């Protein structure tokens, strides 16, 4: 597995992967941070408690205010992860490079696991980089809007920051498992990415909105969103984590079995 991991790292140094993998997450998190801080107001209209990019200066001055914007766009960072995992895996089929890999590493489970771990490491770096840059931008913009940053560096603030990083990262790994499964199933980067993005964005929204009102407690995209936010009004963090862990294990087993048994 380590050989497959090491091998995959060579491929992840490609300019396109670096640009889209690191740059995509970075772009979303920095833009979200800028919008959140720039649109912060002193008081909200009555009845509006503040969410998304519409929050108060007081809310942003809280210990968890540093990554408020980042967490709000965690779904988009997750989409970047889904695209990265699906693209990297499915392109091995579409480019025909999978045959070369399987000749050098015929233990297919090790090959796919090593590849997944390398991508998971890459996405960890992408999340860290994105949050670090977003935090830097937040510290730079906050004084201009009268946002107090002292709470951000308190022990509570650092604890919130760490948990936010962990939650966003775990959600990204979940999106990655979904992307990998679709890639192995469909063997086409375009189709895998399109179907994955369509499922977690409009399709799940339609299902929860029009067909299954309780779906936001069980549908994977909704649960990944809850996980990234550390829990939300539909699902507690624990419920999201446990349910997604079960989904992840079942998906991983199914994906590995398919990858091992199907002709390359």
């Amino acid at each position: 597995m380590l050989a497959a991991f090491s091998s995959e790292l060579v491929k992840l140094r490609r300019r396109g992967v670096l640009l889209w993998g690191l740059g995509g997450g970075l772009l979303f998190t920095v833009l979200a941070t800028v919008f959140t801080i720039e649109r912060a107001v002193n008081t909200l209209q009555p009845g509006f408690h503040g969410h998304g990019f519409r929050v108060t200066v007081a809310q942003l001055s809280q210990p968890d205010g540093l990554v408020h914007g980042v967490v709000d766009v965690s779904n988009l960072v997750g989409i970047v992860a889904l695209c990265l995992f699906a693209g990297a895996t499915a392109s091995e089929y579409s480019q025909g490079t999978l045959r070369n890999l399987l000749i050098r590493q015929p233990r297919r489970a090790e090959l796919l696991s090593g590849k997944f771990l390398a991508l998971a490491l890459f996405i960890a770096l992408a999340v860290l980089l994105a949050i670090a840059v977003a935090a830097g931008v937040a510290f730079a913009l906050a004084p201009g809007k009268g946002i107090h940053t002292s709470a951000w560096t308190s022990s509570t603030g650092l604890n919130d920051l760490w948990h936010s990083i962990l939650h966003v990262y775990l959600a990204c790994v979940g999106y990655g498992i979904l992307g990998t499964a679709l890639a192995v199933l469909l063997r086409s980067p375009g189709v895998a990415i399109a179907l994955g993005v369509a499922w977690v964005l409009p399709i799940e929204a339609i299902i929860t909105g029009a067909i299954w009102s309780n779906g936001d407690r069980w549908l994977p995209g909704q649960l990944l969103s809850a996980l990234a936010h550390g829990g939300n009004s539909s699902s507690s963090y624990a419920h999201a984590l446990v349910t997604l862990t079960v989904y992840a294990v079942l998906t991983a087993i199914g994906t590995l079995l398919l990858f091992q048994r199907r002709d390359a």
Partner: protein
Amino acid sequence: MNGRPSHLVPNQEPATSGQRTTSPAAPASSPAGKIPGRETDGPAVATSALTKRFGERLAVDAIDIELPSGVVSGFVGPNGAGKTTTIQMLLGLVRPTGGTARVLGHPVGHPAAYLDRVGALVESPSFYPTLSGRRNLEVLTRLGRLDRARIGEVLALVELGDRADDLVRTYSLGMKQRLGVAAALLPDPELVILDEPANGLDPAGIREIRRLLRRLSDEGVTVFVSSHQLAEIETICDHLVMIHQGRIVFQGKVDDLLAAQHSDLIAIPEHSKDLVKLAELCEQEGKAAHVDGDVLRVQASGDWAAELNRRAMAAGITLRGLQSTRASLEEAFFAVTERKDR
């Protein structure tokens, strides 16, 4: 492979200098597939009733192949005959529907047991276009836990050293093909399986591949090369496996196949008025002959040339030319497949 020299490296001239050698190949019926003078434990590849079916389509139909170790074996057949599917089964990429196969003594169901000693190029060369040739080989080197020093060696061997750091997307098809061969040689393999290695190569590139394959064979490496370019196969291979519509129609020594084909003697008398008389002489000996322009074509093997010359002289006919022609591999292929089709 026992007693095989270490890594094949560039700048070591092969003993044959690219010329065809007459390495003896074991006949297909040989149970062990041993080559005289070589220390081998058995055939490099042996299949028994190996079958692959894709839905309703039978791609490979119960084939029995035995490849002798240490020689260049050709795998010929038209497009869609089942060559690539067979190769993919040998490499563990495709699961057989039926039958058995062993590569380097191990069943194809356990490719991890032998693939570290096998190099292969399957179908078209496939690489990451936005990585350099060197980086592409590094991907495979790391994956197979191979010696990184081999990258430079194999790149030099296929004469890609000066373009090794360019992105693969800037390579011509011929360069990608050579990179594919380099990738196959990375593990310093005992068995090299190449699927259409001459595709996209210019004549000089084809000649280099031919030299390389002979050199590998001289090093004791078993080479199994598929192609539909029969003239190329005839030039480089000692042993041949012929597949047609998923079935093996011939396997054995190339020389045996060609010798078994219909051959002609071409006699050219000094005076063309003697052609008819010469034809009558041949027919008296039971040899079919017909006049073809200024020459007489006689259906007889080369062994009968001396007899024909003696009889012509005795009859007062002077021959200014006498040569035997042997069927080409292409002619032999069509002869064999047409017989099977009937």
